């Protein structure tokens, strides 16, 4: 299935939503309206949004700590994200999760606070769907720094050994916290590591959402057809700092500028306009709608109550157990 115009418009809309929502949340964090720090992904929205394009709603996604791209892409609403960040009773987790976004009914699976702890879990989710013959695919998104974590190799090994419907996606944004990734990553590319485990891989421009979509679509159909795992490495760039408390300064200005020219949102809009199915008026209308949605979401989150402290002991253990 090639990427059709309507789908591209939706992906585009998602990218813009991510960009605007991240900027808005950044202001809220800085203003201490939101109690956590924020990790944003300006410039890399095409990866998280694009990989969700070819997914079914019951496919599993293990996302990252950076920004909202894959969460918006997989079907979380701005209000849901905001209520989690505010820690309000109206959030899906009733204030328990904060940045660790989760929405089980659209397949958004746990984001562990410990980077890399999702590798084993994503193997388990993929194994589960294989054993249940459900046709679901699991996508495990992670940063190039996280590829250094211990369970990365074992997850590739298990996925390969058992030919699991599991797509590993490395979001290589070239920075690991406050240092260039080559400071702590031994190789230019992560992807060939998959080859060592017999897992096929591709390295793709992560700032072109059509390429992201297409590569993911290939990997996902392979996986769904029982042809086993793949690893995709998307090359992109984190234009902002690591997190809201990071003053930055270690990313060369020219480097940032060069990547600004490759902005995935601009590129997508330019292409849609050049191909004639997007106009300045569409753009303006869309931005207004998104901004209104975000403002409504902020207001909803602001006005929502905090959870009742008495709820703090609820659901520590699942009650009752197996009922069958």
């Amino acid at each position, binding site marked *: 299935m090639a990427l059709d115009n309507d789908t591209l418009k939706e992906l585009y809309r998602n990218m813009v939503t991510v960009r605007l929502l991240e900027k808005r949340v950044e202001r809220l964090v800085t203003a201490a309206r939101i109690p956590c720090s924020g990790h944003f992904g300006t410039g890399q929205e095409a990866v998280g949004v694009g990989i969700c394009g070819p997914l079914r709603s019951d496919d599993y996604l293990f996302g990252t700590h950076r920004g909202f791209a894959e969460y918006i892409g997989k079907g979380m609403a701005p209000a849901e994200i905001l209520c989690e960040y505010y820690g309000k009773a109206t959030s899906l987790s009733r204030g*328990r999760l904060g940045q660790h976004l*989760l929405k089980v009914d659209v397949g958004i699976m746990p984001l562990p606070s410990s980077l890399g*702890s999702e590798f*084993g879990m994503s*193997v388990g*989710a993929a194994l*589960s769907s294989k*054993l249940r013959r459900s046709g679901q695919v699991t996508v495990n998104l992670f940063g190039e720094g996280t590829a250094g974590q211990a*369970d990365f190799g074992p997850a590739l090994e*298990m996925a390969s050994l058992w030919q699991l419907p599991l797509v590993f996606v490395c979001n290589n944004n070239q920075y690991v916290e406050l240092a260039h990734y080559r400071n702590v990553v031994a190789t230019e590319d992560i992807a060939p590591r998959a080859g060592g485990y017999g897992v096929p891989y591709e390295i793709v421009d992560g700032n072109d959402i059509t390429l992201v979509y297409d590569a993911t679509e290939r990997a996902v159909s392979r996986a769904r057809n029982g042809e086993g795992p793949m690893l995709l490495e998307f090359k992109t760039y984190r234009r902002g700092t690591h997190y809201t408390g990071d003053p930055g300064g270690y990313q060369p200005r020219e480097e940032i500028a060069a990547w600004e020219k490759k902005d995935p949102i601009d590129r997508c809009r330019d292409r849609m306009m050049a191909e004639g199915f997007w106009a300045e008026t569409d753009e303006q209308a869309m931005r207004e709608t998104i901004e209104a949605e975000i403002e409504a979401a902020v207001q909803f989150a602001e006005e929502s109550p905090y959870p009742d402290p008495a709820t703090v002991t609820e659901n520590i253990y699942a009650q009752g157990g197996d009922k069958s």
Partner: protein
Amino acid sequence: MSHRRITFIQAVREAFQEEMRRDERVFILGQDVRAGIFGTTSKLVGEFGEDRVINTPICESASVGAAVGAAMTGLRPVVQIMFGDFNYLAMEITANQAGQWHYLSDGALKVPMVIETPSGARGGAGYGHSQSLEAAFILPPGLKVAVPSTPYDAKGLLKSAIRDDNPVLFFEHRRLLTQRGHVPEEEYLIPLGQADIKREGKDVTLVALSATVQKALSAAERLSQQGIEVEVIDPRTLVPLDKETIFKSLQKTYHLVVVEEGRRRGGFGAELTAIAAEEWFDTLDAPVQRLGTISAPLPYSPVLEAACIPSEDDIVRAVLRSLGQEE
């Protein structure tokens, strides 16, 4: 009721068989579980096939991680960790993830899984194949911990553990694995959180875990000949802990002794003794006696290993100390 006597290994294997027949979501994964290094999973692959008895690579962290992922998505995995000591390799995924996501998701996710793990000292295995680490799983939230001491308890608890919607650690002491005990043919379950009074007595309450239960019973037998009647209680699960049964006993005896093979410093005995000193203070007539392995690595040489681990004699002495008597 029949009086069939089978080994601990057979009892565990029966629990697997019955639960796997009953519920096709149950499956086993772990290193060499098809062959079954300790026998508890041997031959299951014949009946249930390779999809439900899965040999994993040598990676405890990712294997437990895979169990967590499978448990969250509709299956009920049992992951075997070949030696209890290796649970520390999966500590992050067990303690920080498995036990926490039900709560964090406000109930949207369940993590129904079992970690089955032979452990304990049996002589000649050395420092990293001999530890009893069950107490390490009292601190993390959301986990349950079973430490059966007989084939009967093992079968009944394991079946409950498999049906439980929470992650349960199931420790099997390697010294018990080949021992036989009564296990009825008929199906039964033992709820998690129900202690068992292994011997009644009125003078001292002796709480013992896993392989130390037998030592406690022998010690009680000896003490009985001196006219001291020890009540031996096996809590069977550390979390949830059946405080009521222990407290009821204490209300009769006013003397508490705790024994475990895990290390004494920071062990289960610490938690139980603390509960006693907080909640049952007026029911204590004497200092609590807490026995456990000394806080050292477990040495290999059998004479050294024996010097680290509480013995029957140590238990007898502790009971006498509790009563203010010397042996």
